[in-house]
């Protein structure tokens, strides 16, 4: 029986050597490994994995093509629902989505759907297989997409395929959004994987204009009134870093994870030939337990620092992908769980020397259903450190909502949009983290695609 075959483990770079370089951790499957792993799929009549995929990829469909060795056909199946498979295969939280619902996972190990998706995407790229032909604009309608992260890229790609003339406006000097500035090279290689995903979008006829900050360089109104855009999609993500508001947070050596990761990823501070500086010192404490915290910690480790994650709940509540936590532990990251910083302590000249923490215990569940941590009286202690990185989550950037009349926002600053991405102003659509608050690449991509459909319906009216 197919499911007697154990899950094929993807080859990985040795933890001890990868702790000192920025090359990709996981090598992924080769064709033989992918075919073998694909043969484990039961091809369920009622595939729960598809229902658990935010964009509803025909998972058994593409896996059966892989099992038959028809990798190009597998890519075509995925392309019907996803525009960034090489990215999602690497960064999706599969264990809570497709793989978490896999029938094989009930008694044994689920099919490695993420690794198979990645294999198909990488194989297509390496073999020059394009899943869709470049389209020529068949109508003159213009759509502006603001932000070139997962939501914007997905929305722009779909609109271009429908024949619209699409321009993406990106505030930074490189497209990709969080895929470029946030996710490190060792999880998502920029020059091969990301660049080629963006080239695919460009090949559809999408123009990308970098160095344009909408809300400053131009406004949504000027794009619509002066530059003739018929509709606008806002996919500006959640880029505003949060801090704790504890004493000592402005000491030298306290950074937001956004700053630390942007310096390292977008500005390539880890490379000697790039000029942007980055600071770690000997010891780094990263506060938080999500993917961003893992990324920051593993980056600090690779830059040579002894690194500790400080998280106020237990291992079970860590919001990061299971694979990232596992990789972080393998590489030698320390974890101080059920621990929360109360103060950052500095030297007389204002440099971080230690972080004062308090132990926590889990109390009653909060509104999200998670048991909220409460401090244990008298348990305060000091941890010596040279650098503190705050990875506490991010909020949507208010630049657009503040410069565009009629765009309603929630109390937390997120744009208000209905399930189809329509905002409170006609012709303006939004999706991804700008609407939901910080979430995942795949959800942003799904929102971008949904908005593309609504924009098409709106413009056809």
């Amino acid at each position, binding site marked *: 029986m197919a499911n007697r075959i154990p899950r094929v483990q993807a080859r990985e770079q040795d933890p001890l050597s990868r702790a000192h370089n920025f090359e990709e951790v996981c090598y992924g499957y080769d064709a033989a490994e992918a075919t073998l792993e694909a043969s484990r799929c039961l091809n369920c009549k009622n595939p729960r994995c598809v229902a658990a995929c935010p964009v509803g990829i025909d998972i058994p469909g593409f896996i059966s093509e892989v099992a038959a060795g028809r990798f190009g056909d597998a890519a075509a199946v995925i392309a019907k629902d996803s525009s960034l498979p090489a990215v999602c295969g690497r960064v999706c939280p599969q264990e809570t989505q497709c793989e978490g619902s896999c029938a094989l996972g009930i008694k044994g190990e689920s099919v490695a759907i993420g690794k198979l998706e990645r294999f198909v995407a990488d194989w297509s790229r390496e073999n020059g297989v394009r899943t869709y032909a470049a389209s020529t604009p068949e109508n003159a309608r213009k759509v502006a997409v603001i932000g070139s992260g997962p939501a914007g890229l997905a929305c722009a790609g779909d609109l271009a395929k429908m024949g619209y003339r699409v321009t993406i406006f990106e505030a930074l000097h490189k497209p990709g959004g969080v895929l470029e500035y946030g996710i490190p090279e060792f999880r998502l290689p920029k020059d091969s994987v990301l660049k080629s995903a963006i080239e695919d979008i460009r090949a559809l006829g999408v123009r990308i204009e970098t*160095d344009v*900050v909408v809300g400053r360089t131009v406004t949504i109104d000027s794009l619509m009134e002066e530059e003739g855009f018929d509709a606008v999609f806002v996919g500006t993500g959640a880029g*505003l870093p949060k801090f704790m508001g504890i004493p000592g*947070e402005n000491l030298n050596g306290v950074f937001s994870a956004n700053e630390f990761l*942007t310096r390292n990823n977008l500005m390539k501070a880890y490379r000697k030939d790039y000029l942007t*500086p980055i*600071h770690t010192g000997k010891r780094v404490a990263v506060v938080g337990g999500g993917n961003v915290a893992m990324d920051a910690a593993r980056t600090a480790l690779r830059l040579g620092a002894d690194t500790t994650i400080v998280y106020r709940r237990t291992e079970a509540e860590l919001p990061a992908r299971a694979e990232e936590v596992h990789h972080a532990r393998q590489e030698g990251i320390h974890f101080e769980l059920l621990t929360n910083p109360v103060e950052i302590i500095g030297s007389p000249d204002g440099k971080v020397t230690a972080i004062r923490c308090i132990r926590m215990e889990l109390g009653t569940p909060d509104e999200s259903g998670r048991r909220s941590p409460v401090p244990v009286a008298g348990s305060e202690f000091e941890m010596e450190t040279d650098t503190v990185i705050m990875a506490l989550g991010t909020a949507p950037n208010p630049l657009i909502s503040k410069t565009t009349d009629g765009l309603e926002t929630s109390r937390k600053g997120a744009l208000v949009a209905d399930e189809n991405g329509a905002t409170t102003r006609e012709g303006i659509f939004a999706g991804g983290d700008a609407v939901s608050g910080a979430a995942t690449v795949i959800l942003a991509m799904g929102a971008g695609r949904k908005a593309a459909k609504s924009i098409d319906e709106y413009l056809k009216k």
Partner: protein
Amino acid sequence: MFRIIEKEMLTPAVCRMKVEAPRLARAARPGQFLIVRTDEKGERIPLTISDYDAAAGTVTIVTQAIGASSNDIISLETGESFEDVVGPLGRSSDFVGMTPERLASERFIFIAGGVGTAPVYPQVRWLREHGAAVDVIIGAKTAELLIYKDEMKAVCDNLFICTDDGSEGFHGMVTALLEKLVGEGRDYTRAVAIGPMIMMKFTTMTAKRLGLPVTVSLNTLMVDGTGMCGACRVTVGGKVRFACVEGPEFDGWEVDFDEALRRQRQYAEEEKEAMENHVCKIGRGK
């Protein structure tokens, strides 16, 4: 794309460039800044906008050679291009929102130090065009480091020069000159200080003692300039603010200058190392 169409050395270490950036030039207002990147491997460097011409589609920047990155800027020649120029960033000066009646009733004194003199120029010009009375103090260590004298003279009511060594104008610091002018009975309603952080700190102390409200333009560290990284955070009135989106101009009386000065040196060790190891490759075919 962002071609340099004019370059001029104002002093041996200070350079003025006019750069093509049409979208930016159309949107720029007094008080805002921009970010440049010389080449793929360069830093994103925030610079105050020294002038803008919407019709010509150009912006003017003034840079002083102080480190590896600013040396790279200065080594670019007319006809060459910046890899990136993005902006305008930050909020425009508060006076941009004042009514004409209000502007006509204000008597501004600008205190400009070093390269900070350049971004003062478009503010003074704007204010004069909108009916406000504007005097300007330009200070420098010595006469040959003074910039923008003629330009400023053409747009302000009274120009006062001071040098630390007395080689031109008033012998002394901008703070002493400000005190002297107010002592002579010049009844300014509002001061604006732009220059090195330490100069803005002391100017603010003097202005506060004189009861004069003062606006300062904070040149903090930044990476993206859009509110994403928080490198620029400063404490103003006891609250943490992001200079890139909530500034760069703040009420000087409320700014924690000692913290701002310390935070500016955050990467001092790394920058020193970069300066020692950096071989400038710009202009050598990259």
